[in-house]
């Protein structure tokens, strides 16, 4: 097996609030190979975004703090770097695309300036050269009229165009790892399809790895090779995409797959199937839970589930789940 590009090992990020410690990420491990796309899926509050922000050390502190773990990027622990060293990594070797381009772009700067910034910072380009490269980059993300758009401000662009600017910014320094946090959630479905296609194509061309944070299993199936499923701050299952969709082992993964209506389903099976409900809701992350966090909602729960945290069990190559009573 080739050396992973990035290895997250036992990462714990907690938030120390006035009414207690929120264990937003509570011991998560995974790795991404060069050129691979790994999806991290889960519902709101499962810790998927905090995981990605922790990798780049963008957690606001206080109240947040990475309390344990390592993030080995090309063999180097990012958590041990100084802030200056870390700044040299962000936007260069590792870059990030956020969900809401309107809030993550600077409204007071032209999009050209924002794309050029990291070239000036990381590559020492002159402003003029960097702007020329910004136009080329906008052309590459298939922005219509790049020469004109480069001088415009974010509010003058549509949502899809803004997300193209974000991608141009993220890819302009040729990162080895791209972290995309719900990159298409705010977009309409026809625009989402364009953006996903673009990300796939550009990442393939550059040989970059992607960590794709999403709640949409459709996006996972189309984009990723491997998947990590998170629940309440912990990883519950990891597998190749094909394996996860065909043979989910963790009852939460199975519930998630069954709760989504699939396009064409109700038309093929007359009347359709009833959606799988996962009863109840996500537990509070402020309390210490002795067992599996999913146990109170789990149809497979047995006595042991509320007493001991289940360890990971392997189910074939690359497939593991943390469950005392898995789906057969």
């Amino acid at each position, binding site marked *: 097996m080739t050396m992973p590009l990035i290895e997250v090992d036992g990462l714990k990020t907690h938030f120390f609030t006035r009414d207690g410690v929120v264990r937003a990420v509570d011991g998560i491990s995974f790795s991404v190979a060069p050129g691979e796309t790994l999806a991290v899926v889960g519902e709101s509050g499962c810790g998927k975004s905090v995981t990605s922000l922790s990798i780049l050390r963008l957690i606001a502190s206080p109240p947040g703090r990475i309390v344990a773990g390592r993030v080995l990027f090309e063999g180097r622990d990012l958590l041990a770097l100084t802030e200056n060293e870390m700044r040299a990594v962000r936007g260069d070797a590792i870059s990030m695309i956020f969900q809401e381009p309107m809030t993550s772009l600077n409204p007071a700067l032209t999009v050209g300036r924002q794309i050029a910034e990291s070239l000036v910072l990381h590559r020492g380009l002159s402003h003029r050269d960097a702007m020329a490269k910004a136009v080329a980059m906008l052309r590459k993300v298939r922005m219509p009229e790049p020469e004109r758009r480069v001088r415009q401000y974010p509010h003058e662009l549509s949502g899809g165009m803004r997300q193209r600017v974000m991608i141009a910014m993220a890819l302009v320094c040729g990162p080895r790892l791209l972290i995309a946090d719900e990159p298409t959630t705010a977009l309409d479905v026809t625009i989402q399809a364009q953006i996903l296609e673009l990300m796939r194509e550009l990442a393939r061309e550059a040989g970059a790895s992607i960590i794709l944070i999403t709640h949409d299993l459709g996006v996972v199936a189309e984009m990723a090779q491997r998947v990590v499923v998170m629940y309440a701050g912990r990883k519950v299952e990891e597998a190749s995409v094909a394996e996860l969709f065909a043979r989910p082992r963790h009852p939460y993964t199975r519930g998630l797959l069954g709760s989504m*209506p*699939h396009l064409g389903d109700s*038309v093929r099976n007359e009347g359709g199937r009833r959606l799988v409900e*996962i009863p109840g809701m996500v537990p509070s992350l402020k309390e210490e839970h002795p067992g599996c966090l999913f146990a109170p909602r789990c149809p497979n729960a047995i006595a042991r589930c509320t007493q001991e945290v289940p360890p990971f069990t392997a189910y074939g190559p690359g497939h593991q789940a943390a469950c005392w009573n898995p789906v057969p």
Partner: protein
Amino acid sequence: MTAPGNVLLEVHGLRKFFPARTRMLARSAKVHAVDGVSFWVREGETLGLVGESGCGKSTTGKLILRLLDPTEGEVVWRGRRIDQLDRAGMRPVRRELQAVFQDPYSSLNPRMRAVDIVAEPIRNYESLPEAQVRGRAADLFARVGLRPDQLLKYPYEFSGGQRQRLGIARALAVQPRLIVCDEPVSALDVSVQAQVINLLMDLQAEFNLSYLFIAHDLAVVEHISHRVAVMYLGKIVEIAPKHAIFTRPLHPYTEALLEAVPVPDPALRKQRRLLAGDVPSPIDPPPGCRFHTRCPYAEERCRREEPPLQEISPGQLVACHLRQPPA
């Protein structure tokens, strides 16, 4: 379009223009939010209304509920026009025509206890002794899957899914016949979304409710709807029974929309034909067919002439020059 029996709601040529502020055309510019929409909803039926942001689907819902007044067109409720009614005239209609909105946070009064949120419409429409009102509210609570100990709580004490249940209980309180559901599950996580969709479908079966189900998620719309209308830039481009829309879409936009949905099955990973470009501005919509700027099949005629919505196959109406009714 001839509507068969037991039609509850009809909409004819509905239009809503909003004044737009633009730099050059400050005087005359208008946003054509809804531009000539017609459809009907039968008793016990769910009509899904889909389209991308800005297509006018939510405005259509608001016009029906009279939260906005139409610029033109008719809204007919059980055979009677309601688009001109005043407050007093609308009062009995509002009882039968209820709404559930996307964001249960902003559509529930934060200062009211849950029991009063559900009881208020009952008190408003029926003069019942308070004990009976509270009893009805408690029954509704149980019916939508809320616990009796939650009756005295405030909206902020509920999770998103529970707030949506509360919104549904409020809509049900006065025994409506049709509920306009505007993106009722899009703010919810998938596991909770399934709970709410199942609840809506169960309630429909139990009370013979009709829904106008406005949403952008095509898989959800397919799951819950009997018929589906697809909107683009203020117009309905296709309306048909669910089976026809999802197995044999006839409008190029419907086709593209279905094609763009990511399929949660890695075995079906597909090479798609993608729609180019963005949706044009509704302030100055393209002439002819509004979809022609993005349509892969557009011809000269599409740029000039607006296609009418015509019945191409039984129950399937399409607004496209390339689809002609059988001779």
